[in-house]
């Protein structure tokens, strides 16, 4: 019998395609609403938070890599996606998404990690100019005399700051809106449980007076 902890648990595994699809869908939403952010990490961050480090890593890798249809070298950036997914899963597993102080700490960790990876990958593979729009800003900064390394880190930080903050906060908010029963069905569910429920859950509504003049009456006609 499939045990809940098994990494091949269907509920966890299915988070991967859903996470990737949400990456695309929400990235598209940001474009539709003409928002100045990417928002294409929400899916695999959610997958990591609910599914754990392995699910998060795979979802992150595939999420960025399937973007290859739109970005030739997405496979390189897929490693950043995988790392983010992995770390989110670890943070969830360590209970660091319970309560806003911990959530802030986790967000900071993710922003720092994301910035570092973005800078490192860009520098190591492309010498800092990787074909994304911010590279132009980097070039301009270097022209003004700033050392290349600093320019890379600075621009990466600014880009990741808003994007990753939203990409972490949005899933956390939605997890808070979820019903507990649904949350518990996911591998990390019990570790994310944030008791802000209003009343003790009752299952059935108290009986309300049944509506008047019923169905099938064929009344006074």
């Amino acid at each position, binding site marked *: *019998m*499939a045990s809940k902890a098994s990494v091949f648990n269907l509920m966890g595994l299915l988070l991967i*395609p859903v996470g990737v699809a949400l990456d695309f869908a929400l990235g598209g939403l940001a474009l539709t609403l003409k928002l100045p952010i990417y928002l294409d990490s929400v899916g695999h961050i959610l997958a990591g938070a609910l599914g754990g480090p392995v699910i998060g890593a795979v979802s992150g890798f595939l999420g960025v890599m399937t973007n290859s249809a739109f970005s030739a070298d997405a496979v390189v950036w897929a490693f950043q996606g995988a790392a983010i997914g992995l770390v989110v899963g670890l943070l969830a597993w360590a209970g660091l998404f319970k309560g806003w102080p911990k959530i802030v700490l986790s967000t900071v960790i993710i922003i720092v990690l994301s910035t570092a990876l973005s800078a490192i990958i860009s520098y190591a593979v492309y010498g800092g100019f990787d074909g994304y729009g911010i590279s132009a800003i980097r070039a301009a900064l270097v022209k003004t005399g700033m050392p290349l390394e600093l320019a890379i880190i600075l621009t990466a930080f600014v880009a990741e700051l808003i994007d990753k903050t939203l990409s972490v906060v949005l899933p956390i908010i*939605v997890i*808070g*809106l*979820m*019903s*507990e*029963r*649904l949350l*518990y*069905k996911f591998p990390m569910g019990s570790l994310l449980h944030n008791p*802000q*429920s*209003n*009343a003790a*859950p*009752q*299952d*059935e*509504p*108290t*009986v*309300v007076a*049944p*509506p*008047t*003049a*019923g*169905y*099938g*009456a*064929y*009344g*006074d*006609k």
Partner: protein
Amino acid sequence: MNAIEITGLSFSYPLANRPALQEINLSVKPGEWVSVVGANGAGKSTLAQVIRGLVPHFSKGDLSGRVLVNGRDLATLSVGEITADVGYVFQNPFTQLTGVATTVYAELSYGLGNMGVPPVEIRRRVDAMLESTKLTKLAARNPFELSGGQQQRVALAAILVMEQPILVIDEPTSQLDPETTNAMFELLAAAHSAGRTVVLIEHKMEQVAQFSERVIMLHDGRLVLEGTPEQVFTDPQCESYGVRLPESLYLQRALEQRGVLLPDKALSVNNLVMQLVKLGMHPRTAKSEPAQDDVPVIHPERFSTTQPVTPALLEIDRVTFSYPNGVEAIHEVSLNLRAGESVAIIGQNGAGKTTLAKLVNALLRPSSGEVRINGQSTAKWTAAETARRVGYVFQNPDDQIFNKSVYAEVEYAPKRWGLSEAEVRRRVVDALHLTGLTGSQNLNPYDLPLSVRKFVTIASTIALDTDMVIFDEPTAGQDLRGLNRLITILRELAARGKTVITITHDMEFVSQNFSRTVVMTDRQIIADTPTEETFYLNEVLAKAMLDQPAFPELTRNFFSNDIGLSMNALASAVVEQLGR
């Protein structure tokens, strides 16, 4: 050996303080058709999932008692192993598609591949199944591009092809139009004739009465009634458990109240007709069919003779709409509604009903023609601005719901609109009361069944207090209490002077609750008449491929359409004819 043997079954979901099933005992013989009925939340789906082993393996929770399927104790089997014995189909067509098949053919082969069936045999079975489910024409299509009804047929076919001896089917037709519903029942009947055991959960009591060998009723997790369809539906307690009767029984009851007594309980309209003939009624012959009106039949004015003339609230003026890819969805449609009118729009899927509705609330813009509300064209308003005048309850409540509690959900939009706190509160409390959700206001909407979540979106829309409200398929999947609740809501909205448009497949509901009906087919309105005439327009019904409600189905056997939808008229005409 019984196909299914359940003894002393009790089950509670995790985090629940009430058991979902209590002390259920059930035996199902091989090849038997057992239908499970009951109010929503009574435990029907839970029982279905127990038989398939999804409860408790998937859902967790505490299960006691014994469940034997084909003689094997489910507690000793893994969920996967039960696949060989039990097929499972449920309500939502979209999530029943695997998501890895690019063609319907591949979709049907998937399960067989998992079972290790040799490729030659896979081909044989899939080809045969495509033939018998009439899906051959769709075999190369992407399942995700099909309509909901087609997807549901594919989902059923994909299970039938696995040839499990026991089929557990949970509300397969709730989201489907009448034509596809009949097709689904035909498929199940064929499977049953081939010797399979069928356990079916449904709200469509006419078909349940027609096809089941045995009916069991659940209430609050307990098995309260069991027997043949006749035994169960004629039991006086049936409706008190929240279960609707087959419509013919309501007709019979109404006739009895007016002095027409029949010897047997009629579980179908045909049976009702037979009994009346036996009593001495003369059935009409085909030759005496009255001349048909030419299609389209448009005379809503006849309805309005009893109402004072008020200016039109909504004017749809020769509107045509085509999608960006050039496909035309609506062709030269005109429709006028006065304030306070309540109209039903019926027609098959693809006729253009939802498109028309979305043109009213400006989610779509006419390609030609104009939509006017209170004399003003909607062309200049955004969809969100139009929403202040036209409320729209979408077919799928999960397209809108996201708040943590029912109260928060209903409160969300009025709050966004900037109304005062006191006003928001007043509206929310009123909307919750009207939809019967006051007791559930602190629950998370996703902890409620889908049919109740529908009322959450209805409440959200009522709280916006718009002059016009559009309901898109509100009756789908509703039990008796839900239908009664909808009737109350429609009456209350009428009393408040709201204009209501209801799109629905439920002909019974239409014939009993709306005085004006619009029929759409193939992108156009082909009839706009008082409801008492609509179901006698043979040409119209044939073109739109609509079912008939039980009342006209009965009366056409004996009378012309002067009877309309009046039970008094029918009863007196019957008494008169029998008296002679």
